[in-house]
């Protein structure tokens, strides 16, 4: 599948800057994302990948830079703002409340309520069942707290949350880091499915094979700076590793 990159990108982060004390966590980084595209954000531990993405999801406020969503400058100061722009995030460390069930987590912060203003658990469970049937047909444990679920089941709840609320831009920060082989495959299938629906995905991943298999482009970071952005279909694994480890940008692969 080829991605049409002639129009306006779904989202563009321009010249993003974030420092913590003396550490330049993100140092003038520019990345963008088109509909139906998966862009890998690669780099060593501490390269600044998560911080860059957290500025988009509203969890961290940027020091400088501009976020442009569908051609319009976007004000994203907290997670609520990001949700308004249909930006959803699946975090590196599973951001679910362990003690609540799947439905409560899926709707956390956006509960369905009855006309009396009380939370409508039955309705939320029904919606959760519907969406999970689509995404993970084997899922059965609707009334158990999510701590009783496997890593993959939990991740499918997190992904269902993004899908249910019609995410257009999805940030996945190492979505398979905590998962086994089978569960990783399931998440990979989900990513493909979301891509087909025209959702744009930023995918942070350390697994080069997986990046090759899932991503269209990759933006590589090192010490807070952008090494470069390349076309994954044309780049070899060695090209990518060279960017990550040595910080050398293969100009001919730029995308």
């Amino acid at each position: 599948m080829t991605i049409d990159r002639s129009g306006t990108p779904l989202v563009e982060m321009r010249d993003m800057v974030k420092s913590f004390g003396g550490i330049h966590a993100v140092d003038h980084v520019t990345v963008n994302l088109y509909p139906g595209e998966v862009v890998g954000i690669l780099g060593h531990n501490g390269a600044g990948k998560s911080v860059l993405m957290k500025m988009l999801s509203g969890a961290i406020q940027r020091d400088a830079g501009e976020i442009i969503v569908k051609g319009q400058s976007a004000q994203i100061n907290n997670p609520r703002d990001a949700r308004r722009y249909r930006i959803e995030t699946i975090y590196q460390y599973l951001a679910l409340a362990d003690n609540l069930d799947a439905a409560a987590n899926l709707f956390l912060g956006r509960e369905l309520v009855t006309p009396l203003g009380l939370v409508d658990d039955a309705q939320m469970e029904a919606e959760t069942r519907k969406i999970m049937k689509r995404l993970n047909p084997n899922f059965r444990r609707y009334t158990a707290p999510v701590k009783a679920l496997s890593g993959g089941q939990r991740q499918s709840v997190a992904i269902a949350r993004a899908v249910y609320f019609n995410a257009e831009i999805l940030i996945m920060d190492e979505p398979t880091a905590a998962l086994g082989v089978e569960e990783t495959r399931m998440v990979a299938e989900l990513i493909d499915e979301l891509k087909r629906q025209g959702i744009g995905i930023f995918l942070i991943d350390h697994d080069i094979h997986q990046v090759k298999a899932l991503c269209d482009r990759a933006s590589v970071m090192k010490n807070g700076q952008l090494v470069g952005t390349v076309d994954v279909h044309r780049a070899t694994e060695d090209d990518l590793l060279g960017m990550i480890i040595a910080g050398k940008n293969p100009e001919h692969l730029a995308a």
Partner: protein
Amino acid sequence: MSDATSTGAGPRPRRGFLAALEIDTRLLGMIGAFFVICLVFNVWTEGRFLTPRNIFNLTIQTVSVAIMATGMVFVIVTRHIDLSVGALLATCSAVMAMTQTEILPNALGLGFGHPLIPWVTILAGIATGVIIGAFHGYLIGYLAIPAFIVTLGGLLVWRNVAWFLTRGQTIGPLDETFQTLGGINGTLGETGSWILGGLAALAAIWGLWSVRRNKVRHEFPVKPVWAEVTLAAIVVAAILGFVATLNAYEIPERRLAQMFEARGEVMPEGLTVGYGVPFSVLLLIAIATAMTIVAQKTRLGRYIFAAGGNPDAAELSGIDTRLLTVKVFAIVGALCALSAVVASARLTFHSNDIGTLDELRVIAAAVIGGTALAGGVGTIYGAILGALIMQSLQSGMAMVGVDAPYQNIVVGVVLVVAVLVDIIYRRRTGDRI
């Protein structure tokens, strides 16, 4: 957990009687422990423990701690602690004592016995509690000072603010209407109690039925009908049994005669009248119901549990956890004020040491009632049952003549053992500790 343990996967295995009722096993355990305590003391006291009179007293003695314990559940669920509830109770009590004996009758010239006095007083008390509680919450939520420190400071501060407000004096007697909220001085009477019991039973049945109807509507699995009926029968029997017991405690003849005299009537020969449900217990029931609805059916409650289960997840879901902390502590403040109403009304005066050590009783009640100090887990009914268990132990030991120091030793040991049992139970069921 492996898939083999998944509930609902494949055909449901035949389940036991208790499993079919779907009652929380922890709740059953607590009720069991409570019954054992009652039976042991009943045998030990040769039947004096389970008399209507003692059950009545036990009930009204539990109310003050139980009211605060419902709020402590929210505090502990959000991974905080409140060591200041006893001191806050004292400050609220002092404010209300001064309001009803000084400010309103004298300074504002309403005179003693004015019908507005008790209600304005209670509002002043609640406002005091909410403001102080919200202030604690602000220090904890926005300035990130640990709750342990804020409320430890609060314990010292508010205990002594109470002292200053009353210049260290006992203030009383309190307003007569106000006193009816203390327990024995204000009860619903037999007829009123039966009406209340009937309404409560109907509400319980309606509640169970509407949950079932809702499940059926969404085609979720439901309990078998016989289980539903059994459960309803148990609940109704418990409610009516409770009312019958409180009604069976009769107002002493001399007191009854005085009451007739006060109304200028003559007491009919051989008349007996039961006390029925005290207003303070009614207040506790109302608070417990409201707090349970908040916990289970409102966004506020959902966010309290989410923030306790995973504060980061709550934050990333757009929940303002700092404001949430303020709300939780403000609720506790309001409940301390209501407890202060009950506690001072029961004494009929405000005393300096009112509420002393209540923080420990309240925390113990919540913890014995299954609230996990790690956060995210706890129930309102559990905390109330915890308060009742503590009070039964204490009263029972007093009745059999155990000296006060030994009583405290036993209560301390019971607290630790209860938490140990809970930890073992949670390990078995794979819950968080």
